[in-house]
């Protein structure tokens, strides 16, 4: 089963950083109304770096795995580098080729994270 490789199934069954905290620095909601994937991402910053990241979400396996992998990936990352993350980085993280439809699922977490840090404004 190509698309549902071990790493994807692992993140889907045991998502890392799953949960919610009381006082995040940034909280951002994102969704794909056409398929029903939805996510809430919470970031805790230390200076201009991501110190902690949490997410809760509902959706397909690709979306949840992507969210879990992304959160793991951005812990400790600077906001500058976070803003530079692209679709190709996500595809590299996930490690599989995706159809146009599934690509939307995989990219929703990144789109949401970018929305979150853009709300912060320039700098930092």
């Amino acid at each position, binding site marked *: *089963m190509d*698309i549902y490789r071990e790493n994807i199934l692992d993140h889907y069954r045991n998502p890392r950083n799953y949960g919610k905290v009381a006082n995040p620095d940034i909280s951002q909601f994102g969704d794909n109304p056409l398929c*029903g994937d939805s996510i809430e991402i919470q970031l805790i910053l230390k200076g201009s770096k991501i110190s902690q990241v949490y997410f809760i979400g509902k959706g397909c*396996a690709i979306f949840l795995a992507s969210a879990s992998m992304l959160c793991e990936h951005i812990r400790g990352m600077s906001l500058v580098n976070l803003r530079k993350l692209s679709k190709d980085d996500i595809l590299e993280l996930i490690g599989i080729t995706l159809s146009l*439809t599934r690509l939307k699922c995989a990219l929703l977490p990144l789109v949401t994270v970018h929305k979150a840090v853009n709300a912060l404004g320039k700098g930092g």
Partner: protein
Amino acid sequence: MRSVLADFPLLKIRIRNKRIVYLDSTATSLKPQPVLDAINKYNTQYSANVFRGLYDISEKATFEFEKAREKIANFIGASTTKEVIFVRNATEALNLVAVSWGKENIKKNDVVVTTIMEHHSNFVPWQNLSEEKGAKLKVVGVDRDYKIDETELLLAVKGAKLLALTHISNVLGTINPVLKIIKKIRKINPDIVIVIDGAQSVPHLPVNVAKINCDFFAFSGHKVLGPTGIGVLWGKTKILEKMKPYMYGGEMINRVTISKSTFQDIPLKFEAGTPNISGAIGLGAAVDYLNAIGMDNIRKHEEALTKFALEELSKLPNITLYGPKRASDRCGVVSFNVFTKKGYLIHPHDVSQILNEDNICVRSGHHCAMPLHDRLDLVATVRASFYLYNSRRDVRELIKGIKKVVKILG
């Protein structure tokens, strides 16, 4: 009913060395060879424009185009061919009514009625019209067996100007008993204008618009074995004659001067520009094909297959089915969700992705029916649908596929 598999060239295709198990006819149907031949014959032997030339191939094009119109009129029980208007699809047909009839006749505080089970194409035009005109949109719900709440419907239509109702739900498969319902409605409100979305019924049931006694009826050619890009709006003569044109230009005019134009009678009044000639001829060939098999036979075949599918699907643990319990109350559309052993939803995208590995083609999502999914508190569903070229073997493949999904993601 004889086996029709050999008539559909797409079913000969192999992907990953396996056959295609096509269970998405609700989205679009496969095309039989006679339809493809008719389209190709037009394009290769007489691809002239209609109503224009006096030369042989133009006469032939006009003749075949109008013959297709006549075939379709007979197929749906229209009393005259004038009432059959060619459009692009059911969506365009419904929008034509909303614009040409709706804008003139719906006023502020009028009541427009529709239902929660409508496809977006029979919901959004009425929602938009109501908003523009300051009319009130009433949305009738479903009961526990996923059928129209008839009590609520009969209350809602009192004093209403228009009712937009689907004949068969593309998600639940519910067959709305339109003949009976419309009789009851017209006793309460004789002047109400009734629009029926027949996109899912024309392919699967014998339809007779005169008996149904609606004012408008819409369907798409590509769902009834025809090509894409052709559809039909049927309307009662007396209502169509009063309506303003939808689009203006060639074909639909009678006389054009620099200061003023006059327009054709129906149906041409609503057919501006060069129509989808090959599409109409293809749809005519589809009607011939279906008539040769018999719509009653097709309905019998599908009802038995749906009964089998519902029985087999019900045997699976961790599955929820949506739609009426009895196969006789529904057409061959089965929407469902699959859950893990712990009861978590396996997302329809994942289900259909895994089924695709075995070439099982189903649809996942909200199927252009977001209000319905919201009302049922569902994020999305998986939808399998059957047509005359499906068999018990296809259902068994689907069951095997679902078991595989549960094994991988359950």
